């Protein structure tokens, strides 16, 4: 496990919480393993934190529209970035601030666009990992995104995409995924944090306990940051019996936002579709 000093306190708190619950019933349950001996990451997982609001440490904040009130306000969070702050180049930090100011219209999440990597991992929706002896495939509930992870794959990204091109390999019990081939249109959170199309994201999935994974993502992008930087958070297994991802086709909910300005003058959103 790779735990830097800066991230230790948060991770340790969660980790020990998990240990306590596992030990409480006297079990020494281990993380499931695949036939080849690697950890079997299969299952439904979800992050439980405020990284989707803002990767950096943040105090509570106003909702993007004041009329939305307290239930859509931004909850506080200690952040998930090693060292606390993303090492933006000055112009890139200004661009982040511009995106934050324009988040109501520019955040791709609001338009039901694919979340990208790593954002899809910590959006407030579950995702399912399918693993066989050769490859891994991840299905995200949000916008029904999918990623194929080519284990021991070395092909370069054949084209740019929203979810990138993922070549993976095992380092001991850690699945390391190198993701490139982005299109530069995804964001990292709702606070305007971003990477460019040239970013390389290196993810690490490491078992922490039978129902917990440590997730790390290191982001390298010399056009945006002064150095590579890393986020780190636990992922939690959804343990509900027979749990299945339900569809979240978000297109209908984004149509007024994206196309409302093209609606026939004098007409309004057809209220009857709300009941559909």
């Amino acid at each position, binding site marked *: 496990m790779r735990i830097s000093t800066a991230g230790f306190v948060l991770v340790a708190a969660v980790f020990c919480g998990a240990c306590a619950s596992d030990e409480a019933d006297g079990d020494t349950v281990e993380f499931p393993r695949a*036939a080849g001996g690697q950890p079997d990451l*299969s299952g439904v997982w979800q992050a439980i934190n405020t990284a989707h609001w803002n990767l950096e440490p943040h105090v509570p904040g106003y909702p993007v529209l004041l009329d939305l009130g307290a239930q859509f306000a931004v909850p506080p969070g200690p952040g998930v970035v090693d060292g606390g702050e993303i090492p933006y180049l000055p112009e890139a930090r200004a661009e982040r601030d511009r995106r934050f100011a324009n988040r109501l219209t520019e955040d*791709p999440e609001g*338009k*039901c*666009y*694919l979340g990208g990597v790593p954002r899809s991992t910590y959006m407030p929706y579950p995702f*399912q990992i*399918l*693993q*066989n*002896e*050769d*490859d891994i*495939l991840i*299905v995200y509930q949000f*916008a*029904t995104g*999918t990623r*194929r992870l080519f284990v021991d794959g070395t092909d370069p990204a054949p*084209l740019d*995409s*929203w*979810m990138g091109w993922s070549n993976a390999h095992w380092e001991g019990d850690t699945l390391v995924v190198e993701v490139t081939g982005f299109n530069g*249109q995804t964001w990292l959170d709702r606070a305007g944090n971003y990477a460019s199309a040239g970013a390389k994201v290196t993810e690490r999935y490491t078992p922490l306990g039978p129902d917990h994974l440590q997730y790390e993502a290191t982001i390298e992008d010399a056009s945006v940051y002064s150095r590579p930087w890393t986020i780190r958070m636990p992922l939690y297994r959804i343990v509900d019996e*027979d749990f*299945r*991802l*339900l*569809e979240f*086709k978000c*297109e*209908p909910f*984004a*149509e007024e936002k*994206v*196309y*409302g300005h*093209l*609606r*026939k*003058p004098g*007409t309004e*959103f*057809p209220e*009857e*579709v709300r009941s*559909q």
Partner: protein
Amino acid sequence: MKHSMTRLHRSSIAGAVACVLAAAATLPAAAQTSPTGPLTAWGDPDIAGVYALYTTAPLERPEQFGEREFLTDDEFAEIERRRLEPREFNFESDTEPGTAGDVHYNLDQFALGANEGVNSPNRRTSIVTMPANGRIPAALPQAAARREAATARTRGRQFDGPEFRSLTERCIVWSQTLPPLLPGGYNSNLQIFQSPGYVLIQGEMGDPRVIPTDGRALPENLLPQWNGTSVGHWEGDTLVVETAGFRPENAWRGSSDQLRVTERFTRVDEDTIEYAFTVVDPETWAEPWGGVFPITEMDSVLFEYACTEGNYGMANILSGERAREREAAAGQ
């Protein structure tokens, strides 16, 4: 599992495929038998790969064939000759620039034409094999009434806003990626991914179906979903998938939310999966109907489609109508 990554497509031998297909779709479920084909490392039949969902047979049988299921050698040779004939497209058309008639939507120019890429030769006269005439049964009166009600809702408002456009234009569902799967006009590719206890099925333009194969039954009360809810089990070499719980707005071929679909995936040779389906919807058709066609494995991965993200069509449809309205108002 990974054979598609390393192996070139081998042309299917049409006759062999036809022989295997002859017994499909209309037979009752096979008895529990041991699989005889290739297996995954954990012992399930191996049907994984990326497949081209194109076949040479039409969905419904041309009436000239009556109840004849297969083409003769000469008929098949002629169809193949026409299909593989290079086509030339005349870009120097005599249509007037800037008019609707001048718009070219030509798949051949993108190497997506019928004579390009992977296709599954099929000597059947139709995909539909049940009923025996190879044609989809007529819809019941209540189905026609549902369709008329849906049409009435949008009549005269088709260009008012995105909610009045088709589900496909809205990037919500594509009929060829729903169960049952059917060949579509383009991007008609399919990924099957297997892991212990699950099979994932995803059309290129559609949503992933993560199907548990542990033998669980479909729950009684399903939350309606655009793609329904699927469960699967293995019968010999065949994956059998049952799907129900569709949203009523789906109306696949006019169906209701009572639609139930049974699909059967069977590997019949190294490159070919036989896909058979049966649909039952007592609110739409008086009898079940179904069909069968081969799908052919490709040496490819499934690429990201990202429909919504690139849906310039919706903006252009609506803004085009707004422009037309402004012109009409200015002309009055």
